[in-house]
Protein backbone atom coordinates (compact mmCIF):
# COMPACT_ATOMS: atom_id res chain seq x y z
CA UNK A 1 0.00 0.00 0.00
CA UNK A 2 1.21 3.45 -0.77
CA UNK A 3 0.31 7.07 -1.48
CA UNK A 4 -1.06 5.89 -4.86
CA UNK A 5 -3.75 3.98 -2.99
CA UNK A 6 -4.67 7.23 -1.28
CA UNK A 7 -4.80 9.06 -4.62
CA UNK A 8 -6.95 6.26 -6.02
CA UNK A 9 -9.41 6.77 -3.15
CA UNK A 10 -9.18 3.18 -1.89
CA UNK A 11 -11.60 2.65 0.97
CA UNK A 12 -10.17 2.73 4.48
CA UNK A 13 -10.84 -0.03 6.98
CA UNK A 14 -11.42 1.38 10.46
CA UNK A 15 -10.80 -1.11 13.26
CA UNK A 16 -12.29 -0.28 16.65
CA UNK A 17 -10.20 -1.56 19.56
CA UNK A 18 -12.83 -1.35 22.26
CA UNK A 19 -11.36 -2.45 25.54
CA UNK A 20 -7.88 -4.05 25.49
CA UNK A 21 -6.32 -5.76 28.47
CA UNK A 22 -3.99 -3.20 30.00
CA UNK A 23 -6.23 -0.56 31.58
CA UNK A 24 -9.89 -0.51 32.55
CA UNK A 25 -12.53 1.81 33.89
CA UNK A 26 -10.00 3.27 36.32
CA UNK A 27 -8.51 4.97 33.24
CA UNK A 28 -11.80 5.88 31.54
CA UNK A 29 -15.19 4.86 32.96
CA UNK A 30 -16.58 4.74 29.41
CA UNK A 31 -14.38 1.79 28.49
CA UNK A 32 -16.64 -1.25 27.93
CA UNK A 33 -15.87 -4.43 29.86
CA UNK A 34 -18.90 -6.72 30.12
CA UNK A 35 -20.20 -8.63 27.07
CA UNK A 36 -23.29 -6.39 27.09
CA UNK A 37 -21.21 -3.20 27.19
CA UNK A 38 -18.88 -4.49 24.50
CA UNK A 39 -21.79 -5.52 22.25
CA UNK A 40 -23.38 -2.09 22.55
CA UNK A 41 -20.07 -0.30 21.99
CA UNK A 42 -19.44 -2.41 18.88
CA UNK A 43 -22.85 -1.52 17.44
CA UNK A 44 -22.19 2.19 18.01
CA UNK A 45 -18.80 1.86 16.32
CA UNK A 46 -20.31 0.16 13.29
CA UNK A 47 -22.81 2.99 13.07
CA UNK A 48 -19.93 5.48 13.25
CA UNK A 49 -17.96 3.87 10.42
CA UNK A 50 -15.96 0.92 11.79
CA UNK A 51 -15.67 -2.29 9.79
CA UNK A 52 -13.60 -4.46 12.15
CA UNK A 53 -13.84 -4.87 15.90
CA UNK A 54 -10.79 -5.98 17.93
CA UNK A 55 -11.90 -7.78 21.07
CA UNK A 56 -10.45 -8.69 24.45
CA UNK A 57 -12.31 -10.36 27.31
CA UNK A 58 -12.65 -9.16 30.89
CA UNK A 59 -13.73 -10.70 34.16
CA UNK A 60 -16.58 -9.10 36.11
CA UNK A 61 -13.96 -7.15 38.05
CA UNK A 62 -12.65 -5.65 34.79
CA UNK A 63 -9.49 -7.78 34.93
CA UNK A 64 -8.21 -9.69 31.90
CA UNK A 65 -9.87 -12.95 31.02
CA UNK A 66 -8.58 -15.63 28.66
CA UNK A 67 -11.61 -17.82 29.18
CA UNK A 68 -13.10 -19.30 26.00
CA UNK A 69 -16.64 -18.97 27.36
CA UNK A 70 -16.12 -15.32 28.11
CA UNK A 71 -14.92 -14.73 24.55
CA UNK A 72 -17.94 -16.71 23.35
CA UNK A 73 -20.30 -14.43 25.29
CA UNK A 74 -18.60 -11.34 23.90
CA UNK A 75 -18.53 -12.54 20.33
CA UNK A 76 -22.23 -13.43 20.52
CA UNK A 77 -23.02 -10.01 21.98
CA UNK A 78 -21.21 -8.39 19.05
CA UNK A 79 -22.46 -10.72 16.30
CA UNK A 80 -26.08 -10.41 17.41
CA UNK A 81 -25.93 -6.63 17.01
CA UNK A 82 -23.52 -6.05 14.11
CA UNK A 83 -22.10 -7.27 10.81
CA UNK A 84 -18.61 -6.21 11.89
CA UNK A 85 -15.58 -8.37 11.12
CA UNK A 86 -14.77 -9.98 14.47
CA UNK A 87 -11.13 -10.04 15.46
CA UNK A 88 -10.04 -11.62 18.74
CA UNK A 89 -6.82 -10.76 20.54
CA UNK A 90 -4.27 -13.49 21.24
CA UNK A 91 -2.05 -11.06 23.12
CA UNK A 92 -1.50 -11.56 26.83
CA UNK A 93 1.55 -10.37 28.73
CA UNK A 94 2.53 -12.97 31.30
CA UNK A 95 -0.28 -15.36 30.32
CA UNK A 96 0.43 -18.90 29.21
CA UNK A 97 0.30 -19.95 25.57
CA UNK A 98 -2.61 -22.23 26.42
CA UNK A 99 -4.55 -19.29 27.89
CA UNK A 100 -3.81 -17.18 24.83
CA UNK A 101 -5.15 -19.85 22.46
CA UNK A 102 -8.60 -19.80 24.04
CA UNK A 103 -9.87 -16.80 22.07
CA UNK A 104 -9.38 -18.82 18.87
CA UNK A 105 -11.75 -21.55 20.04
CA UNK A 106 -15.10 -19.79 19.95
CA UNK A 107 -17.91 -21.16 17.81
CA UNK A 108 -17.81 -19.85 15.16
CA UNK A 109 -14.15 -18.89 15.29
CA UNK A 110 -13.31 -15.21 14.87
CA UNK A 111 -12.72 -14.17 11.25
CA UNK A 112 -9.41 -12.60 12.33
CA UNK A 113 -7.07 -12.71 15.31
CA UNK A 114 -4.12 -10.56 16.31
CA UNK A 115 -0.69 -12.19 16.29
CA UNK A 116 2.13 -10.34 18.09
CA UNK A 117 5.35 -10.50 16.10
CA UNK A 118 7.78 -10.42 19.01
CA UNK A 119 8.56 -9.44 22.58
CA UNK A 120 7.63 -6.23 24.34
CA UNK A 121 8.22 -4.93 27.84
CA UNK A 122 5.51 -4.00 30.32
CA UNK A 123 5.93 -2.20 33.64
CA UNK A 124 9.32 -2.85 35.23
CA UNK A 125 9.38 -6.61 35.38
CA UNK A 126 7.06 -8.06 32.75
CA UNK A 127 7.69 -9.05 29.16
CA UNK A 128 5.19 -10.23 26.61
CA UNK A 129 7.43 -12.98 25.27
CA UNK A 130 6.06 -13.93 21.87
CA UNK A 131 8.89 -16.28 21.02
CA UNK A 132 8.96 -17.56 17.44
CA UNK A 133 7.73 -20.89 18.76
CA UNK A 134 4.70 -19.23 20.35
CA UNK A 135 4.01 -17.18 17.22
CA UNK A 136 4.15 -20.30 15.02
CA UNK A 137 1.96 -22.23 17.40
CA UNK A 138 -0.73 -19.52 17.53
CA UNK A 139 -0.51 -19.07 13.77
CA UNK A 140 -0.93 -22.81 13.14
CA UNK A 141 -4.10 -22.92 15.20
CA UNK A 142 -5.42 -19.87 13.31
CA UNK A 143 -4.64 -21.58 9.99
CA UNK A 144 -6.41 -24.78 11.13
CA UNK A 145 -9.51 -22.81 12.04
CA UNK A 146 -9.55 -20.52 9.00
CA UNK A 147 -8.71 -17.37 10.97
CA UNK A 148 -6.78 -14.58 9.26
CA UNK A 149 -3.91 -13.22 11.36
CA UNK A 150 -3.39 -9.52 11.82
CA UNK A 151 0.37 -9.26 12.33
CA UNK A 152 1.11 -6.87 15.21
CA UNK A 153 4.35 -5.00 14.54
CA UNK A 154 5.37 -3.21 17.72
CA UNK A 155 8.72 -2.03 16.34
CA UNK A 156 10.91 -2.25 13.27
CA UNK A 157 12.56 -5.46 14.43
CA UNK A 158 9.16 -7.07 14.23
CA UNK A 159 9.16 -6.29 10.49
CA UNK A 160 12.06 -8.73 10.25
CA UNK A 161 9.95 -11.19 12.22
CA UNK A 162 7.11 -10.77 9.70
CA UNK A 163 9.53 -11.80 6.96
CA UNK A 164 10.68 -14.72 9.09
CA UNK A 165 7.09 -15.87 9.59
CA UNK A 166 6.51 -15.62 5.84
CA UNK A 167 9.57 -17.83 5.32
CA UNK A 168 8.34 -20.39 7.83
CA UNK A 169 4.63 -20.38 6.97
CA UNK A 170 2.42 -19.92 3.93
CA UNK A 171 0.19 -16.93 4.79
CA UNK A 172 -2.78 -16.24 2.54
CA UNK A 173 -2.70 -12.95 0.64
CA UNK A 174 -2.96 -10.17 1.41
CA UNK A 175 -0.64 -10.06 4.41
CA UNK A 176 -2.13 -7.60 6.89
CA UNK A 177 0.19 -5.90 9.40
CA UNK A 178 -0.57 -3.38 12.12
CA UNK A 179 2.21 -0.84 12.63
CA UNK A 180 2.27 0.29 16.26
CA UNK A 181 3.75 3.51 17.66
CA UNK A 182 4.09 4.67 21.23
CA UNK A 183 6.48 4.34 24.17
CA UNK A 184 8.59 1.52 25.57
CA UNK A 185 9.24 -1.32 23.15
CA UNK A 186 6.98 0.13 20.46
CA UNK A 187 8.42 2.18 17.60
CA UNK A 188 8.99 5.80 18.65
CA UNK A 189 5.97 7.72 17.39
CA UNK A 190 6.94 9.97 14.52
CA UNK A 191 5.83 10.55 10.94
CA UNK A 192 9.25 9.48 9.70
CA UNK A 193 9.09 6.17 11.54
CA UNK A 194 5.65 5.43 10.11
CA UNK A 195 6.99 6.16 6.63
CA UNK A 196 10.02 3.95 7.20
CA UNK A 197 7.90 1.10 8.49
CA UNK A 198 5.63 1.19 5.46
CA UNK A 199 8.67 1.02 3.21
CA UNK A 200 9.93 -2.09 5.01
CA UNK A 201 6.73 -4.08 4.61
CA UNK A 202 6.83 -7.17 2.43
CA UNK A 203 5.69 -6.66 -1.16
CA UNK A 204 1.90 -6.57 -1.44
CA UNK A 205 1.23 -6.29 2.29
CA UNK A 206 -1.58 -4.08 3.56
CA UNK A 207 -1.04 -2.06 6.70
CA UNK A 208 -3.05 -0.71 9.57
CA UNK A 209 -1.80 2.22 11.69
CA UNK A 210 -2.03 2.28 15.48
CA UNK A 211 -0.74 5.14 17.63
CA UNK A 212 -0.98 5.10 21.41
CA UNK A 213 -2.43 8.01 23.38
CA UNK A 214 -2.08 11.41 21.75
CA UNK A 215 -0.33 9.81 18.77
CA UNK A 216 -3.55 8.07 17.73
CA UNK A 217 -4.98 11.06 15.89
CA UNK A 218 -1.93 12.32 13.94
CA UNK A 219 -0.50 8.94 13.01
CA UNK A 220 -3.80 7.40 11.92
CA UNK A 221 -4.43 10.51 9.83
CA UNK A 222 -1.06 9.99 8.23
CA UNK A 223 -1.88 6.32 7.73
CA UNK A 224 -4.96 7.36 5.78
CA UNK A 225 -2.81 9.63 3.57
CA UNK A 226 -0.35 6.81 2.96
CA UNK A 227 -3.09 4.56 1.66
CA UNK A 228 -3.25 2.40 4.80
CA UNK A 229 -5.98 1.35 7.16
CA UNK A 230 -6.39 2.55 10.75
CA UNK A 231 -7.21 1.40 14.25
CA UNK A 232 -8.66 3.64 16.95
CA UNK A 233 -10.42 3.09 20.25
CA UNK A 234 -10.19 3.19 24.01
CA UNK A 235 -7.81 0.23 24.15
CA UNK A 236 -5.09 2.42 22.66
CA UNK A 237 -6.16 5.90 23.70
CA UNK A 238 -8.59 6.96 26.43
CA UNK A 239 -8.54 10.67 25.46
CA UNK A 240 -10.38 12.69 22.86
CA UNK A 241 -8.28 15.82 23.41
CA UNK A 242 -5.74 17.17 25.92
CA UNK A 243 -7.08 16.32 29.39
CA UNK A 244 -10.42 15.37 27.86
CA UNK A 245 -11.49 11.75 28.25
CA UNK A 246 -13.22 10.22 25.24
CA UNK A 247 -16.94 9.72 25.72
CA UNK A 248 -16.97 6.43 23.86
CA UNK A 249 -15.22 4.27 21.32
CA UNK A 250 -17.75 5.47 18.77
CA UNK A 251 -16.68 9.08 19.32
CA UNK A 252 -13.12 8.16 18.30
CA UNK A 253 -14.33 6.12 15.32
CA UNK A 254 -16.62 8.94 14.15
CA UNK A 255 -13.76 11.44 14.18
CA UNK A 256 -11.60 9.09 12.11
CA UNK A 257 -14.40 8.33 9.66
CA UNK A 258 -14.98 12.07 9.22
CA UNK A 259 -11.28 12.69 8.63
CA UNK A 260 -11.08 9.88 6.09
CA UNK A 261 -14.04 11.29 4.21
CA UNK A 262 -12.58 14.79 4.30
CA UNK A 263 -9.32 13.41 2.93
CA UNK A 264 -11.10 11.63 0.09
CA UNK A 265 -11.31 8.05 1.33
CA UNK A 266 -14.62 6.54 2.33
CA UNK A 267 -14.70 4.18 5.31
CA UNK A 268 -15.18 0.58 4.16
CA UNK A 269 -18.34 -1.21 5.23
CA UNK A 270 -17.76 -4.59 6.93
CA UNK A 271 -18.39 -6.61 3.74
CA UNK A 272 -16.09 -4.31 1.79
CA UNK A 273 -13.44 -4.87 4.45
CA UNK A 274 -13.91 -8.64 4.04
CA UNK A 275 -13.23 -8.26 0.35
CA UNK A 276 -10.14 -6.08 0.86
CA UNK A 277 -8.75 -8.47 3.49
CA UNK A 278 -9.53 -11.62 1.54
CA UNK A 279 -11.69 -13.11 4.27
Amino acid at each position, binding site marked *: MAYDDYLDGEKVIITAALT*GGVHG*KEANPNLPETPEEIGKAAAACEEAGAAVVHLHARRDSGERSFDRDRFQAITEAVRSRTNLVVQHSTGGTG*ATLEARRQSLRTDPPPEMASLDMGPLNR*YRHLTSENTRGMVDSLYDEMADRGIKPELEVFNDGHLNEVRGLLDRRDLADPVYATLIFGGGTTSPPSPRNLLNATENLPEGALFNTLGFGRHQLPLTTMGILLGGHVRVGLEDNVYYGPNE*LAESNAQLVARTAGLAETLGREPAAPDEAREILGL
Partner: protein
Amino acid sequence: MPDVCPYLEYRQLGDETQSGDATDSRPRAYCNAAEEFVQAMRADVCNDRYGLDHEADCEIFREAAGPPEGVEGEGAGGD
Protein backbone atom coordinates in the same frame (compact mmCIF):
# COMPACT_ATOMS: atom_id res chain seq x y z
CA MET B 1 -0.02 -22.47 45.44
CA PRO B 2 -0.83 -18.97 44.23
CA ASP B 3 -1.26 -16.34 46.91
CA VAL B 4 -2.45 -12.78 46.58
CA CYS B 5 -0.55 -9.63 47.42
CA PRO B 6 -1.12 -8.40 50.98
CA TYR B 7 -1.59 -4.88 49.63
CA LEU B 8 -4.49 -5.98 47.41
CA GLU B 9 -8.12 -5.35 48.25
CA TYR B 10 -11.30 -5.03 46.22
CA ARG B 11 -13.24 -1.78 46.37
CA GLN B 12 -15.98 -0.05 44.45
CA LEU B 13 -14.74 2.23 41.73
CA GLY B 14 -16.24 5.67 42.02
CA ASP B 15 -15.51 6.59 45.61
CA GLU B 16 -11.90 7.57 45.03
CA THR B 17 -11.90 8.67 41.41
CA GLN B 18 -13.60 11.61 39.82
CA SER B 19 -14.10 9.62 36.66
CA GLY B 20 -15.55 6.54 38.34
CA ASP B 21 -19.03 5.41 37.47
CA ALA B 22 -20.84 5.28 40.79
CA THR B 23 -23.51 3.04 39.28
CA ASP B 24 -20.92 0.32 38.62
CA SER B 25 -21.08 -1.82 41.73
CA ARG B 26 -18.57 -4.52 40.74
CA PRO B 27 -15.58 -4.46 43.11
CA ARG B 28 -12.20 -3.84 41.52
CA ALA B 29 -8.58 -4.40 42.41
CA TYR B 30 -7.19 -1.62 44.61
CA CYS B 31 -3.57 -1.35 45.74
CA ASN B 32 -3.07 -0.11 49.29
CA ALA B 33 0.63 0.49 48.66
CA ALA B 34 0.07 2.75 45.64
CA GLU B 35 -3.29 3.97 47.01
CA GLU B 36 -4.95 3.61 43.64
CA PHE B 37 -6.97 1.21 41.52
CA VAL B 38 -4.92 -1.32 39.68
CA GLN B 39 -4.80 -1.71 35.90
CA ALA B 40 -6.30 -4.89 34.44
CA MET B 41 -2.93 -6.31 33.44
CA ARG B 42 -1.27 -5.60 36.76
CA ALA B 43 -4.16 -7.18 38.68
CA ASP B 44 -2.93 -10.56 37.39
CA VAL B 45 0.32 -9.89 39.23
CA CYS B 46 -1.55 -8.83 42.38
CA ASN B 47 -3.42 -12.16 42.25
CA ASP B 48 -0.35 -14.23 41.32
CA ARG B 49 -2.12 -15.57 38.22
CA TYR B 50 -0.43 -17.31 35.26
CA GLY B 51 2.76 -17.89 37.22
CA LEU B 52 3.22 -14.17 37.88
CA ASP B 53 4.27 -13.28 41.39
CA HIS B 54 3.72 -10.02 43.25
CA GLU B 55 7.04 -10.23 45.06
CA ALA B 56 9.07 -10.86 41.92
CA ASP B 57 7.04 -8.99 39.33
CA CYS B 58 5.64 -5.86 41.00
CA GLU B 59 7.92 -2.89 41.54
CA ILE B 60 5.28 -1.22 43.72
CA PHE B 61 5.36 -4.20 46.09
CA ARG B 62 9.14 -4.21 46.14
CA GLU B 63 9.28 -0.52 46.94
CA ALA B 64 6.62 -0.77 49.62
CA ALA B 65 8.20 -3.81 51.23
CA GLY B 66 11.62 -2.07 51.45
CA PRO B 67 15.03 -3.66 51.04
CA PRO B 68 15.48 -7.28 52.11
CA GLU B 69 16.70 -7.79 55.68
CA GLY B 70 20.39 -6.99 56.15
CA VAL B 71 20.56 -4.76 53.10
CA GLU B 72 20.67 -1.08 53.88
CA GLY B 73 20.53 0.48 50.49
CA GLU B 74 21.85 0.47 46.99
CA GLY B 75 25.42 0.93 48.15
CA ALA B 76 25.34 -2.04 50.51
CA GLY B 77 27.41 -5.09 49.63
CA GLY B 78 30.32 -5.39 47.24
CA ASP B 79 31.02 -7.72 44.44
